C-alpha cells in the first residue's frame, strides 16, 4: 500500500436502505445495513478485488463509488478530494474518469444502437470533439479491445457474449478513465471466452495504467487478477491483504471457509474441508457482535457481544476478528 500512490480511498463508508412496509400508509420498519463502515483504498495502476457472497454489499459499494446511490455516512476520497464536495466541473470530471463494466453484456448495451454509437456516446456527452475526432477515438478503442474498426457498424445482437463484453470495455475506455469498476465482468461468459476477457483487461491495465475495482465471487478469478483483495461478509469488510498473502495465509474464519469452498483444480487436491453451517443471515437483522459468529466454529463469548474492528496484523494484512490476536 505504501509503495503506491493512492487513487481512491474509502473511509467508514456506510449505506443503509430504509425498509418500508405498506403501500399507501407506508412506514419505515427497519434499516438494511448494506454497507457498514467499510475502509479500503485503491492505488494507482492497482487492482483491488472484492469478494463475498450475494448480499454482502460488494455491488452497493461499487454503486456508491459510481455515485449511483447516495452515501449514508463516511467519505470517498478520490485523489485526496471528497467526492461529495466536488465542484461542478470537478464532479463532471470524476464521472468521466470513473467508469464501469457490468456482468451482463446482454443487458448493458442498447439493442437499437450501432456499436459505434454505443461506444461514442460517453464521448459525445462529455466532450466537445469534432465528428472526425470522435470517429478516430472509436476506431482506436475498437482496435484496443481487439474488435477492429469495421465491427462498429454492427448492432449488439450480431456479437457473441465475449465480443459484447469487449464492446462494454471499449465504452468504458473511451474517456481515458483512471478507475474502472468491474462488477462480475466474466461470470456470464463461457470458460474459454473468460480467459480472453481476463487477459484483455490485464493488458489494458498495463498499457494505460488504469486502476480496477474488481467485484467477483469466484476466488480464483479474483486472485488471478488482483494485487490486493478485500473479503466482505454482510456489509462488513472482514479481511484485507495482498493477493498472495491472503491465499497463503487466510486468517479470518470466513475467508478460510471461502477458500475451502472454492473448487479444486485437480481431483487429488486435498483441501481442509470447512462446510459452513446454515446460510448468510438477513442483513435486516444482522447478528449481534461479529456478524459471522452464528456460522463460525471458533466463536467465543466476546464474538456475540462485541463487533470486531479491522486491525493490521503486519504487512498491510488487516483482519476483523477477535480471535486473530490470540492466534
Amino acid at each position, binding site marked *: 500500500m505504501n509503495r503506491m500512490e493512492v487513487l481512491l480511498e474509502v473511509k467508514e463508508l456506510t449505506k443503509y436502505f430504509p425498509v418500508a412496509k405498506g403501500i399507501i400508509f407506508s412506514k419505515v420498519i427497519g434499516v438494511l445495513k448494506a454497507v457498514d463502515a467499510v475502509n479500503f483504498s485503491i492505488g494507482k495502476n492497482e487492482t483491488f478485488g472484492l469478494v463475498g457472497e450475494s448480499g454482502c454489499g460488494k455491488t452497493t459499494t461499487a454503486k456508491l463509488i459510481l455515485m449511483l446511490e447516495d452515501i449514508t455516512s463516511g467519505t470517498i476520497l478520490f485523489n485526496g478530494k471528497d467526492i461529495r464536495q466536488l465542484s461542478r466541473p470537478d464532479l463532471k470530471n470524476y464521472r468521466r474518469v470513473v467508469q464501469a463494466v457490468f456482468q451482463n453484456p446482454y443487458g448493458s448495451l442498447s439493442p437499437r444502437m450501432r456499436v459505434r454509437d454505443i461506444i461514442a456516446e460517453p464521448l459525445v456527452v462529455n466532450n466537445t470533439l469534432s465528428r472526425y475526432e470522435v470517429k478516430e477515438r472509436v476506431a482506436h478503442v475498437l482496435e484496443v479491445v481487439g474488435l477492429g474498426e469495421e465491427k462498429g457498424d454492427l448492432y449488439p445482437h450480431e456479437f457473441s457474449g*465475449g465480443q459484447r463484453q469487449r464492446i462494454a470495455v471499449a465504452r468504458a475506455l473511451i474517456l481515458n478513465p483512471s478507475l474502472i469498476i468491474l462488477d462480475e465482468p466474466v461470470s456470464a461468459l*463461457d470458460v474459454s471466452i473468460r480467459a480472453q476477457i481476463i487477459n484483455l483487461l490485464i493488458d489494458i491495465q498495463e498499457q494505460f495504467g488504469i486502476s480496477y475495482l474488481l467485484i467477483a465471487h469466484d476466488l480464483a478469478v479474483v486472485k488471478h487478477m488482483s494485487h490486493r483483495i478485500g473479503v466482505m461478509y454482510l456489509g462488513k469488510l472482514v479481511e484485507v491483504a495482498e493477493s498472495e498473502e491472503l491465499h497463503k495465509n487466510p486468517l479470518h474464519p470466513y475467508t478460510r471457509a471461502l477458500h475451502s469452498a472454492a473448487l479444486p483444480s485437480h481431483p487429488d487436491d486435498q483441501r481442509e474441508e470447512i*462446510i459452513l453451517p446454515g446460510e448468510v443471515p438477513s442483513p435486516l437483522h444482522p447478528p449481534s457482535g461479529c456478524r459471522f459468529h452464528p456460522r463460525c466454529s471458533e466463536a467465543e463469548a466476546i464474538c456475540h457481544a462485541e463487533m470486531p474492528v479491522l486491525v493490521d496484523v503486519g504487512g498491510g494484512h488487516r483482519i476483523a476478528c477477535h480471535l486473530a490476536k490470540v492466534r
Partner: protein
Amino acid sequence: MNSKTILEVKDLKTYFFTRHGVAKAVDGVSFRLKEGETLGLVGESGCGKSMTCLSIMRLVPQPAGRIVGGKIIFDGVDLLSKSEKEMRSIRGKRISMILQDPMTSLNPLFTIGEQVAEPIIIHQKIDRAKAWEKAQEMLMLVKIQSPEVRIMEYPHQMSGGMRQRIVGAMVLSCQPDLLIADEPTTSLDVTIQAQFLRLLKEIQQRSNLSMIVVTHDFGIVAKVCDRVAVMYAGRIVEYAGIRELFNHPTHPYTKALMDSIPKMEVKVDRLYSIEGQPPDLANLPAGCNFAPRCSQTMEICEKEPPRESVVGDGHKVSCWLSTPKRNE
C-alpha cells in the same frame, strides 16, 4: 468395478430442424454409466451437454428438435422405443433431473409439502397423508431445519440454497436409479455450493445412485465425478476416468480449457486463451469441429472428422493427433 451398466448411450443424434438448416446439437454421442458412478459432461454453452440429458429424458423440445438416431439403453431397455405413457412412469421415478435454477423448477403457488409429496403420490400410489409423512422425511434427509414447519411454506420463503435442496428432496423421493443434474450449483453461492455438492455425494453413497452431472466447471468435475466426457460442438472429444483426464489431458480442446481457468494453487502470469468462437451447429466444418480454433491443426484435420482412438485405460480421444496410423 464389476458393477453393472445402468445407462448406455450409443451414437445418439439429436438434430434441430430450423429455417436456417439442420443444427446438429448432439451428433453421435456414446458413453456408458455404471451403477453408483458419477459421469461429468463438461463443455461450453451450446456444446450439446444439456441436449444429451434432455434426450435421455426424452424431453427434447418439439417439434424443432428430434432424436434422429442412436440408442439410449437404460437398465437393459432402449428408452427410444418407449411410448410417451411409458416414459412418464420412468421420469421422476427411475430417472430424475435437477435443473440449474431452483426457482423455476418449483411452483410458487404450491406449498413445499404438496410439491415434494406429488411425485410420491403419483409414482408410489400411496395416500396423501402417508406421502406427506414421507415428504417430511425427505426434507430431513436433505437437511432442511424444522421440516414440519417448512413443509407448510411456499418457495419464496426459502433461500436459494434451501430451494435447491428441496428440489433435491423432490427428485430423490422416489429413489431413482439415475439422477441427472444440469448445472445444479451455478445459481448458488460458493459456500452454499460446497454444502450442496457434499449433500449430493452423501446421498449417492447411501443409495448407490448413478449420476450425470452437467457442468462447465472442471472444479465441480474434480470434486464429484468418477468419469468425464468433454463435449465440443455436439460431440464427445475426450472421455476418461477422472484422474486420468486431469493427469493426462490429451485432446487440444481439453488441454486449452484446463489452461484457461485461473487456479488457486498455481500462479500463472497469463491465462491461455482459445481464440475464436465455437462453430455454428448448423454449419459445422468439414473436418474436426475444433480445427478452426486448434493450435496444432494438420492438413487432415480440416478434411475429415477424426475417429475415436484409445490412448489409455478407458481413455478415448477423438483427435487426429492421437490416431496412431491410418491404415487405409
